[in-house]
């Protein structure tokens, strides 16, 4: 965005401190616009006619450097692009890389249905939410427009995920667009050869379009030409080569495009970038090797500026690291990583329920909490203040000690005699070396849990309730 201080934004706001946005003052709201935690549309007054001019001006000034475009319709519609920085610590990255997995029009229908469902239903629990994937890319392998339209129709009937229609033949794209014209699919791709017809499709159906050229001069030419024709929702595919010097060049192209867009504010190419890790399958035929290499390519371009990518492998060992790395890169580094210290109830604990200790590192805490609640274990879970450091590191670094544990229960007003029938505390397996210290400091009976909270259910079966002394 072109503004960098709340004061600059404030000048465009109504300055009436009406608090309708949820902030007490327009200046506070301005700060939220700068850090992009709120949208201009959260301010009802500025949407009124009398402020229209300022609204439009501010909207332009606040727009991210990389154009943000929307693919799909409805609740699963996905925004891509929208970035303002080259490194996540400078602010945060916005609009996580959209992962599209492919299907093709020569698949038998039952396989197609199964594959689409697998894509739609994929989920992995992580820190209080599910990681999922985003889109289905339908590839025309048959070369037959009618066949392609049939596949697109089938896919759109069974998933709400946005679609990418993939063919370099404008007639094929058109037949697919006819089927899903009200669903805002992304079309792939306009090239040096077919751009005339594909641009017409993008205009007539009002859909976002990918421009594909390995030559960055040509890619920029395409972008300029489409923009001149009034097509703004563009995605750039500089080609993803799967190996060797060509791959190194691909990596450099991604850096160049994004640097030009953000650091040099070259609006002409400041569009989302597409990577195609699927090309790993052009060089590796063995499924494990190809899946591994595809995941490697996906990771490189998740870190370095891919905004959307097309993938093939649905193997869990490919998808799990892919979604986790995307979360890694796009997690907002400004949000706190700690949970409030204290003693929390999981389920409905009674006097006979265990009291389990962990740290206040958000990831550790949520992992333990979800393992307990999903296995319906009623208990007390203590989040000891370790400055947001995990169990193993905080034991080594001295942030998790017997004194800290004792202090945590005292501050929470948790009296073992009153709340429990067993006067027992369960330490994480990775904190086993604190056992003696905790016994001395608290006078409680100390049991050692498993090193991974995923094993608490098995541990409970063997060890709980504790045998009377």
């Amino acid at each position: 965005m072109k503004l960098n201080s709340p004061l600059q934004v404030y000048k465009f706001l109504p300055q009436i401190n009406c608090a309708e946005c949820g902030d007490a003052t327009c200046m506070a709201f301005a700060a939220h616009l700068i850090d992009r935690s709120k949208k201009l549309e959260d301010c009802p007054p500025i949407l009124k006619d009398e402020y229209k001019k300022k609204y439009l001006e501010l909207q332009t000034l606040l727009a991210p450097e990389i154009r943000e475009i929307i693919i799909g319709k409805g609740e699963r519609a996905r925004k891509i692009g929208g970035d303002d920085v080259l490194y996540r610590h400078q602010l945060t990255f916005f609009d996580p890389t959209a992962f599209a997995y492919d299907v093709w029009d020569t698949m038998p229908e039952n396989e197609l249905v199964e594959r689409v469902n697998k894509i739609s239903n994929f989920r992995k629990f992580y820190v209080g939410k599910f990681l999922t994937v985003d889109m289905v890319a339908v590839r025309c392998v048959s070369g037959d427009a009618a066949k392609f339209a049939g596949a697109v129709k089938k896919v759109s009937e069974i998933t709400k995920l946005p679609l990418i229609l993939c063919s370099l033949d404008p007639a094929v794209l058109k037949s697919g667009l006819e089927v899903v014209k009200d669903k805002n699919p992304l079309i792939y791709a306009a090239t040096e050869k077919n751009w005339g017809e594909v641009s017409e499709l993008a205009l007539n159906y009002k859909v976002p379009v990918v421009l594909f050229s390995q030559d960055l001069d040509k890619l920029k030419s395409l972008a300029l030409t489409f923009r001149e024709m009034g097509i703004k929702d563009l995605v750039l595919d500089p080609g993803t080569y799967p190996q060797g010097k060509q791959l190194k060049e691909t990596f450099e192209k991604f850096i160049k495009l994004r640097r030009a867009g953000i650091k040099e504010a070259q609006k002409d190419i400041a569009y989302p970038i597409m990577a195609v890790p699927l090309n790993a399958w052009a060089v590796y035929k063995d499924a494990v090797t190809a899946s591994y290499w595809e995941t490697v390519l996906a990771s490189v371009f998740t870190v370095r500026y891919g905004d959307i990518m097309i993938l093939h492998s649905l193997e869990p060992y490919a998808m799990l690291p892919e979604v986790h790395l995307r979360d890694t890169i796009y997690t907002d580094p400004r949000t706190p990583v700690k949970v409030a210290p204290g003693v929390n109830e999981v389920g409905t604990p009674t006097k006979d329920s265990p009291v389990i200790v962990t740290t206040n590192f958000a990831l550790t805490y949520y992992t333990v909490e979800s393992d307990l609640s999903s296995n319906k274990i009623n208990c007390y879970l203590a989040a000891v203040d370790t400055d947001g450091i995990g169990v193993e590191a905080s034991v080594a670094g001295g942030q998790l000690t017997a004194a800290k544990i004792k202090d945590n229960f005292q501050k929470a007003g948790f009296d073992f005699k009153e709340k429990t029938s067993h006067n027992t505390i369960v330490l994480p397996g990775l904190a086993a070396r604190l056992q003696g210290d905790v016994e001395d400091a608290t006078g409680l009976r100390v049991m050692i849990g498993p090193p991974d909270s995923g094993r608490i259910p098995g541990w409970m079966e063997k060890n709980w309730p504790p045998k009377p002394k």
Partner: protein
Amino acid sequence: MTKKIKLSELGSLFGGDIEALEGVKIEGDVEIDLGQLGLNPQMAYALGHETAQMAFHLMNISRILGYPVDQIGGAAAPQPKKLSKLIESKFSVGKIEEWKTPIQEVVLGATSSDGGSRKSTVTLGGEGSLPYYFDSPMPHRNHITMDVFDMPINMAKAVKSNYEDVINSPAEWAKKVVRDFGADMVTIHLISTDPNIKDTSPADAAKTVEEVLQAVDVPIVIGGSGNPEKDPAVLEKAAEVAEGERCLLASASLNLDYARIAEAAKKYNHVVLSWTQLEINAQKELNRKLMKQCGVARENILMDPTTAALGYGLDYAYTNMERIRLAGLTGDTELNFPMSSGTTNAWGAREAWMVSSPLKEDSDWGPREYRGPIWEIITGLTLSLAGNDLFMMMHPGAVHVLKEITQTLYGLKETEPVNIDNWVSAVI
């Protein structure tokens, strides 16, 4: 005629009083070249002239200032129109000028001509840009050192199956990783020295180091047990028996007597691994202490800013390393050292080793023997992109793939060109 004006002179261009307009103040003096600016900046912009961009910005600024710029050239916004040929254009982008300070070069291992007995050495660092960037060539590739332990330890099944035949012999283990798995270096972890494990004496541990040095001729890393009371004595003794070999002593940290480790490195010609926990300022502090207080030379310092596994804090580890590297490149001479990653930590992630998800709501996790190695690969690869130079690793398959990708991005891999023009219709 080219006329250059400054933003602060914009008022005169439009004949108005800028100060009075909405109270907007423009700071800094940006020069705008008006040389070829036509009467209609919007049209010029659309045509893609170099200077047109400037005109467009100028127009935007004018609009901010409240001028009815859309009327300046008397033309309305361009209507969508059909073009019959592509607008010609050249793409170019500059290099990063701020990256002026290269990363320190550090040599591990010493050959007989330099007082050691290694057959080869490993040079790390020297970068003048982020890894694999085109701004300046990366002088040295990434290297991998594989873990060897001085006693049998718990390992994930997928890892263990590779080492069952050598698990009781650090020397055989070291030979195996170099001979069979392509390790550039070997790390001998003296974990049995921990008083809570076997409390092996420093003298006995040093014998293991000697055995490993005899078994392989690559440079080695000597790791303690992580016990802050015991490690200085263990590393001191190990440094003594390995005199002149330029081993990497792992590690000096702020929570142990780092001065003793620094002293041992100086006395016996080794390199110190400066280890901190995900905190850039602590890393600066320790590096400064090693240099200023302990007198360790710059070419004898490597950093380990801590590796957290994918899904378990890799976001912190990644950004911490990237910030350290950017700080180094832009002139922070307390941070411009090569970096090392304990990539093996990836195996701590439950996704790497658990048979299946403990949560019923998750999609199937699939076979774990494939999940573990890729977890190690992606953890390492991510950090390689942040600037990490040396990887401490465990699984041979993971080592193989990480080498392949880092050496590809580095530029070592020559392959037959692939045509991807028609990937859309490929039969997979």
